[in-house]
C-alpha cells in the first residue's frame, strides 16, 4: 500500500511540475499575475509530493518490505539501520528520487526566500526549475520506478554493496546531490534571465548565495568521498581521477568560477554573459556527472548502476537541457552588454584570471574523462587517460591560479595599484622562496616539484595573512588593529578562510605525496617492522563477526622509541550479502601525520601480508576542505549576502529604476562598499 501511495504521489508531482513549468510563462505573456504566482504553489506541491514518495520508499526500506523490487535488490534485514536508510539513495532508482526531492526542495526554497523577487521573474525561475523536475520525474516513472512490486515477495533481500556500507558513504551522496542540485537554482536563474533578456547586478546578488551553497555542499561531498576512498579502499590513496570523481570535480570547479564571476557582475555590471554561461555549464556538468554514473558509459569503481537504455533517456534529456539552454544563450546573450569598466590591474581582473584557470581546468578534466571514448569511437585504438595526465593539467593550470589567488584580494576594485599590492606581498614571496629552497636543501636537491608545491602553499597562506594584516593596518597602526579586526565582515573572513583552506590542502597533498613511508611486508606474529621511525609489532589475527559480515582482524602495537603509542586493528571483511571482500584500514592520526595499517591475505604458516604506512600531514587535505566549507558558510551567514533580499530594494531590478538613481543598483553597491 505504501508503495502505491509513493507511486501515486510521483504521478501527481508530474502534473504539478507540468503546471509549474507552463503557467508562469503563460502568465507573463498575458500579464496575468495569478498565473505567474501559480509557480510558487506548484513548487510547494511538487516538494510535498516528492517528500511523500521519498518518505514511503524510506519506510519500505526501514521495514524491509521486500515486495518492492528496489528494496529486495538493495536491502537486507540484517543490515544496520543507518545503511537501510542510506540504501534508499544507494541505488539507481532511489538516487534519482533523491535528485527529484532535492530539485523540488530547492524550488520551494527559492519561492520561500525569494518573496522579494519580482513576481514575473520568480515565476520564470520556478518554471525552469519545474521543467527540470518534470524531466527527472518522467525518467523515473518511465524507466526507473522505485516502487515496482515483486510477486511473490522474497523472504530476504540481496543486500547493499558492502563498499557502500560505511558512514562516509552514507552521507557522501546526499551532500554531493545537494551540491549538484543546488546548481540547478543558478541554472534556473540564468535561463530565466535569458528569457527576460536582462542581467543586473542584483541578479548576481540573488544567484551568488545559491551558487555558494551548492559549492559548499559539493566541497563537503567530494571531501567525504575522498576520505572514504582513503580509509576504505585500502591502499592509502584518496583521489584517483576516476571518471566518477571527475564528474563531481568538474561542477565544483565551475561552481567556484561562478561564485567568483558573480562578484564581478554584482560589483561592476560586467562579465554578465560569461556568468550566465557558467551557470548553465555548471549545472550541465552536474547532469553529465549523473549521466556518467548512472549510464555506466564509462566503467569505473563507482558504476554500481549500469543500464544503457536509461543512458539513452539521460542523454536525450541532457541534450535537451544543455542544447536548449545554450541555444537560448546564443540567441539572447549578445544583447547583454556590460555597463561597467575596470582597469587591467584590478580585483576584477584577478577574478577574470581566476575564472580563466578554473574553467579551463574544468574543460580539461572533461576532455580527459571523455577522451578515451572519442578515441575509441574514431577507431584510433584504446587508450587510458590516467592520473599522470590530470596531474600534469593540474600543475600547468593550478599554479598560475594560486599565484593570482594570492595577489587578487590585495588589489583594489576597479583600478588597483600593482606597486602597492606588490609591496604587501613581497614578504609572501620571500616566505614561498625560502620554503622551497629549504626543502630542496633538506632533501639534497631532490623533490623539485615538491619544493614548488610547498612554495605555492606558503605563498598563498602568507598572502592571506598579509591581506588581513593590511586590512586592519596591523603594521601602520598596531594600536587600532583590534578595532580593525572587528570591522572585518563575515564575507571577508569567509574569503580568507576558504583561500587559506586551499593552501592547507595544497600543503597536505604536497607533503604526503612526497614523504609517505610505506612498507609492504609479510609478517608473522611477533615480527616488528619500522616505518618512518615508528615500529609496528604484529600481534596476530583474530576472527570477528559483525552484523552482516565476518572478518579477520589484525592487531598491531605501534611504538615510538620504547613508548607504546597506540594499537591498530585493521580488518579484512567478507560480506555475505552480496558476497564481497572489503578492507578496513586502521588509521591513527597524529599531529605530524597518519599511521595507517592494512591487513591482507594469509601467506601461510600463520603469516599475513600487510601494508604499513606513515602519511605525513595527510589530514591537512580534509582539514583544508573543512576550512573551505566553513569559509563558504561564513560568507553565506553575512547578513548582506544572505539568501533572499534586503527589504525595499526590489525596484532596483527594474530598468525603470535607472531613471531614479536613489533606488537603483548604485545604492545597493554604495551600501556595501
Amino acid at each position: 500500500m505504501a508503495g502505491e501511495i509513493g507511486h501515486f504521489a510521483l504521478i501527481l508531482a508530474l502534473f504539478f511540475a507540468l503546471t509549474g513549468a507552463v503557467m508562469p510563462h503563460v502568465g507573463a505573456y498575458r500579464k496575468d499575475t495569478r498565473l505567474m504566482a501559480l509557480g510558487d504553489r506548484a513548487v510547494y506541491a511538487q516538494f510535498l509530493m516528492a517528500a511523500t514518495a521519498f518518505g514511503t520508499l524510506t519506510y519500505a526500506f526501514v521495514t524491509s518490505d521486500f515486495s518492492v523490487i528496489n528494496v529486495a535488490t538493495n536491502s537486507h534485514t540484517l543490515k544496520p539501520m543507518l545503511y537501510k536508510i542510506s540504501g534508499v539513495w544507494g541505488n539507481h532508482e532511489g538516487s534519482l528520487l533523491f535528485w527529484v526531492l532535492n530539485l523540488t526542495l530547492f524550488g520551494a526554497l527559492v519561492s520561500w526566500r525569494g518573496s522579494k523577487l519580482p513576481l514575473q521573474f520568480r515565476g520564470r525561475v520556478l518554471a525552469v526549475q519545474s521543467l527540470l523536475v518534470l524531466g527527472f520525474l518522467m525518467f523515473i516513472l518511465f524507466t526507473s520506478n522505485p516502487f515496482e512490486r515483486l510477486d511473490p515477495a522474497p523472504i530476504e533481500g540481496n543486500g547493499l554493496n558492502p563498499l557502500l556500507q560505511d558512514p562516509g558513504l552514507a552521507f557522501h551522496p546526499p551532500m554531493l546531490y545537494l551540491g549538484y542540485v543546488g546548481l540547478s537554482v543558478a541554472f534556473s536563474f540564468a535561463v530565466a534571465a535569458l528569457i527576460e533578456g536582462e542581467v543586473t547586478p542584483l541578479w548576481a546578488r540573488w544567484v551568488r548565495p545559491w551558487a555558494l551553497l551548492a559549492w559548499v555542499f559539493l566541497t563537503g561531498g567530494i571531501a567525504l568521498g575522498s576520505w572514504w576512498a582513503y580509509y576504505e579502499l585500502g591502499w592509502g590513496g584518496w583521489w584517483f581521477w576516476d571518471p566518477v570523481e571527475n564528474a563531481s570535480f568538474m561542477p565544483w570547479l565551475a561552481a567556484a568560477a561562478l561564485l567568483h564571476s558573480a562578484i564581478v557582475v554584482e560589483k561592476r555590471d560586467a562579465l554578465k554573459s560569461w556568468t550566465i554561461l557558467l551557470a548553465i555549464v555548471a549545472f550541465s556538468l552536474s547532469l553529465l556527472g549523473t549521466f556518467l554514473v548512472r549510464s555506466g558509459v564509462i566503467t569505473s569503481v563507482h558504476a554500481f548502476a549500469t543500464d544503457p537504455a536509461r543512458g539513452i533517456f539521460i542523454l536525450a534529456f541532457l541534450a535537451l537541457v544543455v542544447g536548449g539552454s545554450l541555444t537560448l544563450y546564443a540567441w539572447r546573450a549578445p544583447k547583454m552588454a556590460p555597463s561597467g569598466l575596470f582597469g587591467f590591474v584590478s580585483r576584477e581582473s584577478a577574478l577574470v584570471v581566476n575564472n580563466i584557470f578554473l574553467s579551463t581546468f574544468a574543460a580539461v578534466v572533461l576532455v580527459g574523462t571523455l577522451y578515451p571514448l572519442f578515441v575509441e569511437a574514431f577507431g584510433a585504438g584504446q587508450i587510458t587517460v590516467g592520473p599522470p595526465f590530470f596531474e600534469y593539467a593540474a600543475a600547468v593550470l593550478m599554479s598560475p591560479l594560486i599565484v593570482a589567488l594570492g595577489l587578487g584580494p590585495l588589489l583594489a576594485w576597479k583600478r588597483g595599484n600593482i606597486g602597492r599590492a606588490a609591496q604587501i606581498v613581497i614578504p609572501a614571496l620571500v616566505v614561498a622562496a625560502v620554503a622551497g629552497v629549504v626543502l630542496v636543501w633538506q632533501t639534497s636537491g631532490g623533490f623539485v616539484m615538491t619544493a614548488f608545491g610547498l612554495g605555492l602553499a606558503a605563498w598563498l597562506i602568507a598572502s592571506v595573512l598579509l591581506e588581513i594584516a593590511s586590512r586592519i593596518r596591523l603594521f601602520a597602526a598596531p594600536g587600532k588593529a583590534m578595532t580593525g579586526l572587528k570591522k572585518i565582515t563575515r564575507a571577508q573572513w569567509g574569503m580568507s578562510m576558504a583561500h587559506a583552506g586551499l593552501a592547507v590542502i595544497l600543503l597536505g597533498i604536497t607533503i604526503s605525496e612526497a614523504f609517505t613511508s610505506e612498507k609492504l611486508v609479510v609478517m608473522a606474529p611477533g615480527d616488528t617492522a619500522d616505518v618512518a621511525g615508528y615500529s609496528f609489532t604484529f600481534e596476530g589475527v583474530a576472527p570477528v563477526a559483525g552484523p552482516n559480515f565476518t572478518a579477520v582482524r589484525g592487531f598491531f602495537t605501534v611504538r615510538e622509541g620504547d613508548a607504546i603509542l597506540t594499537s591498530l586493528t585493521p580488518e579484512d571483511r567478507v560480506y555475505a550479502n552480496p558476497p564481497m571482500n572489503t578492507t578496513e584500514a586502521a588509521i591513527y592520526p597524529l599531529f605530524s601525520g597518519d599511521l595507517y595499517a592494512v591487513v591482507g591475505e594469509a601467506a601461510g604458516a600463520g603469516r599475513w601480508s600487510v601494508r604499513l604506512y606513515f602519511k605525513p600531514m595527510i589530514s591537512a587535505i580534509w582539514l583544508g576542505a573543512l576550512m573551505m566549507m566553513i569559509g563558504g558558510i561564513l560568507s553565506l551567514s553575512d547578513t548582506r549576502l544572505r539568501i533572499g533580499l534586503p527589504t525595499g530594494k526590489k525596484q532596483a531590478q527594474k530598468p525603470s529604476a535607472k531613471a531614479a538613481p536613489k533606488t537603483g543598483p548604485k545604492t545597493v553597491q554604495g551600501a556595501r562598499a
Partner: protein
Amino acid sequence: MRQVLGTIMLLFGLSVAALGVAVDEKPLPDPAQEAQARALMKEIRCLVCQNQSIEDSNADLARDLRAIVRERIALGDSPENVRSYLVDRYGDWVLLKPPIKTSTYFLWASPFLAVLVIVFLLLGRKKAVAAPAPLSEDEEAQIKALLERQE
C-alpha cells in the same frame, strides 16, 4: 587482439573485486631497482580492474605483470624498454599516461587550447563598452578635495 581483450575483461574483469592489499614476497634486492620498478608499476594499468594501476591491485594479472616488470628491470632493461614491451603486448591501453602521438595531440594540448577558447569567450566581446567621458576639471577638483578630507 582488442576484441579478445574486451571479452576477457567482460568475463573476468568486472566481476573481480580487486580491492585489497597487493603485497609481493620478493622485492628486488637492489633498492634502486626496486624503486624504479615500483615507480613504473604506478604507470601501468591493471587490465582486468577498473581504473587501478598494477601497483594497487591484488588481481592475479596485476601480480603477473608486477613480476614481469621486476624481472625486466632486474635484467637491466630501462623503464622505457619495459613500457614498450608491455605496449607491444597489450596496446596503449596499458599505460595510465597516454603516449604522445597523433591521436593524443589534442589531449595533451587541451590545457593550452582551452585557455585560448575561454579567454576569447571571456574577453572577446568587450568592444561593446564605450569608455566613459573624461572628468571635467571641476569634478577632478571635487574628487581631490574629497580624498584629502578622508585622509
